[in-house]
């Protein structure tokens, strides 16, 4: 009897899981992780050569250039037209490091990398030191300095990822559930029996999402004592990002009839928006795919503002993009609301 009841209840729970779409989550997460891992570059089993950029116009010491080019099992040399292009390629993961001539010491180099505290930087330094020892037999380094494009320690380096996580958490987990709850309990219909306009309800929900996001982000800064970089640019970008993703989340909530479905759908959208942006730093393939995900258009500018001293003036394409995405979701939701979709 006991076992029969347990089986009956388990089957009933499974049926509920099917009904509220939890089962999709169970299937989706392994599929998504598998797909993401496919996009992460293989390391370990296959030796990965270091892609090093050399400026075309730079007068490097011939011995150094010769040594690097001859070590073609360790280094792939990429000619770079200017330091600006080199920096861009570093961000796009086309090269792992850029060598520029030191102005202070003749025949010495400065290594430009994305981050100082990374395994890639360590690999370049070690390889160059070994190469130099093999060629010249001296222990004095060719490298006199390492210049990272992104400043700050590990805490600050990971800050953009945490901020993205907070924004997506509010937008894809909290907001859809709240919207679906209002639909499920017919509270939205009760509100629509008052002289409240549909657009007013939508704007209130957007404002709620934006306020929650700002509170979460500011609280994180306060706790970690992290600086804001360019404050105006940073707050503007968090503003436009919170608008975009709040509108997105409200739309997801509107697609669902109940809270359980909204939570499942929220997680299904949360993971793909978080991972490509967070993992793009580790993979050239993901860097190529990530820009198609709206979160990347928020993550990269925030990273630039917080870690590279970037400003909103240079970041208007993602700014416009996020605004347009947000407006599109806002009007999709308005349309569904007018139709009393699943209400």
């Amino acid at each position, binding site marked *: 009897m006991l076992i029969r009841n347990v089986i009956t209840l388990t089957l009933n729970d499974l049926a509920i899981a099917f009904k509220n779409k939890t089962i999709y989550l169970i299937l989706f997460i392994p599929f998504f992780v598998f797909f993401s891992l496919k996009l992460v570059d293989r390391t370990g089993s296959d030796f990965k050569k270091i892609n090093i950029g050399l400026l075309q116009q730079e007068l490097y010491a011939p011995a150094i250039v010769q040594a690097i080019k001859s070590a073609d099992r360790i280094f792939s040399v990429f000619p770079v037209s200017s330091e600006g292009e080199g920096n861009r390629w570093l961000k796009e993961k086309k090269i792992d490091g850029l060598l520029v001539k030191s102005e202070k010491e003749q025949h010495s180099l400065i290594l430009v990398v994305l981050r100082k505290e990374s395994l890639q930087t360590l690999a370049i330094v070690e390889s160059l030191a070994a190469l130099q020892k093999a060629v010249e037999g001296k222990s004095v380094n060719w490298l006199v300095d390492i210049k990272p494009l992104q400043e700050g320690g590990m805490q600050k380096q990971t800050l953009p990822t945490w901020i993205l996580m907070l924004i997506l958490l509010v937008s894809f987990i909290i907001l859809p559930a709240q919207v679906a709850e209002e639909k499920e*309990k*017919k*509270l939205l*219909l009760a509100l629509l*029996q*008052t*002289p409240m*306009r549909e657009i007013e309800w939508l704007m209130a929900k957007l404002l709620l999402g934006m306020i929650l996001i700002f509170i979460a982000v500011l609280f994180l800064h306060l706790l970690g004592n992290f600086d804001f970089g360019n404050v105006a640019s940073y707050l503007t970008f968090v503003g436009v990002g919170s608008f975009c993703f709040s509108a997105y989340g409200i739309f997801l909530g509107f697609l669902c009839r109940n809270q359980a479905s909204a939570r499942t759908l929220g997680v299904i959208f949360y993971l793909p928006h978080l991972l490509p942006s967070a993992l793009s730093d580790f993979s050239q393939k993901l860097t190529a795919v990530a820009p198609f995900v709206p979160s990347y258009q928020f993550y990269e500018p925030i990273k630039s503002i917080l870690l590279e001293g970037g400003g909103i003036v240079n970041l208007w394409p993602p700014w416009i993009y996020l605004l347009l995405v947000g407006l599109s979701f806002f009007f999709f939701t308005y349309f569904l609301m*007018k139709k*009393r979709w699943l209400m």
Partner: protein
Amino acid sequence: MQIEIHQLTKVYQEKRGLLPVNLEVEKGELIAVIGHNGAGKSTLLKMLASWLVPDSGQVLVDGINLENRLAVVRKVGFVPETPNLFDFFSVQYNLEIFARLFQVSVSRIEEILTEFALLPFRKNKIQVLSKGLRQRVSIGRALLADPPVLLFDEPTSGIDFEMTQEIYRMLKNFHASGKTIIFTSHRPEEIKALATRIIVLHQGSLVFDGSPQQYFDSEIHEKLYQC
């Protein structure tokens, strides 16, 4: 004519709903809409309350098309079968938020609390109230803007005898004060005690429209409750 319904249609995926229905309602009528489950009673009321968008047809309330929701919203109050209130807030908060949206004065909230004997419960959260009390709050909320038309979807469903009698008294009082009332019901005694006109819906179509006397004298009553 207070309400004019022309060719109102709503079909769900399961083919149920409301087939084209035409109806005219005079000011001050107390109409019972009856029929089996799935006959279209709630669908009709929900469309009149703007909860559902009709597939076709139109509804005029005091000559204003229901599509113009903002112009009609103060004219129609709807009390759903299950009270849809903010459960985690108090009775007073629930009335206040809707009063703000209706832009009615604070004194109106006091009137409603007094009229519906809710004063002792004003600070209580909705989730701790009985269904009968919740229904009272729901009715009170529908009356905040003092609409001339009131819609009740099975107002006594799941409510004990005492509260049912109280709701009957309320409906009679609203009717006596000149309001137009449409309610759905499954209870013959309710229909007999309250209605001035009866409408029977069957599989989405209007099959009877007449006085309670005509209804109880007709075969349709027996057929309806034999099935």
